[in-house]
């Protein structure tokens, strides 16, 4: 049985996760900007492939954020439906909200999996220069 407080339980979690996504996004955007400057200065292929990897992650984070926000919105809509007494509709919308949150988290999982690759490229550079 869905009560008016059930979707609201997800709200703090969703907004915290959105906060984490935002922090990630801001950092990656700054990093891309500084890497771009570095690339223009010394035309290094490795920097370019780092930028490509970071760019993919930025798109992933954008989608994570979009799904998170949509989950939040559907949660709110679900609350309103409960408020007006549309019990069945509210249950479907809550399911949708949960699904969107799951999609967002899955994208986050993917993003984390590729998050080390830019660093690997950066460090690959060091190990190469050591061998030389």
């Amino acid at each position, binding site marked *: 049985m869905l*009560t008016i*407080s059930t979707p609201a339980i997800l709200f*703090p979690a969703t907004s915290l996760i959105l*906060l984490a996504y935002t922090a990630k996004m801001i950092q990656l955007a700054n990093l891309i900007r500084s890497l771009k400057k570095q690339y223009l200065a010394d035309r290094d292929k490795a920097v370019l492939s780092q930028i490509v990897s970071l760019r993919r992650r930025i798109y992933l984070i954008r989608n994570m954020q979009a799904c998170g*926000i949509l989950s939040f919105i559907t949660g709110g809509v679900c609350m309103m439906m409960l*408020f*007006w*007494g549309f019990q069945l509709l509210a249950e479907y919308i809550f399911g949708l909200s949960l699904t969107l949150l799951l999609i967002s988290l899955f994208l986050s999982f993917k993003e984390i999996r590729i998050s080390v690759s830019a660093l690997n490229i950066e460090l690959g550079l060091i190990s190469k220069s050591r061998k030389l």
Partner: protein
Amino acid sequence: MELTLTTPALLFPAISLLLLAYTNRFLALASLIRTLKTQYVENQSPHLLSQIANIRTRIIQVRNMQTCGILSFLLCVLTMWLMYNNQQMLAKYMFGISLLLLMISLMISLREILISVRALEIELEDIEQYVRDNEARK
């Protein structure tokens, strides 16, 4: 559905965290727009100008998101106050408006997120040009 004194309070942590996220965005965008402006004064690149335009729209959107969020918070507290004074009917309406404002705030946020990658795309445009030129030379 029965409204209790604690129902609006459920929204408090969510709204305040959301406002924290908005503030972070706002600060990052404001400092970015300042650095882009100094860069633009130095080299007058049209790329920078279109980035600045994008960030400016987003700053205004973030301001509106914050306004709606704060108003939603305010109405939540007002709802609690009304219930404390046994104005059940009025409290219900207030809570409804509060939720609606939160939804509006989130929708603006969604729009902001969807255009957020645009500035970076513009930033990377010239790099893509270089890469294509390099490949053409080979």
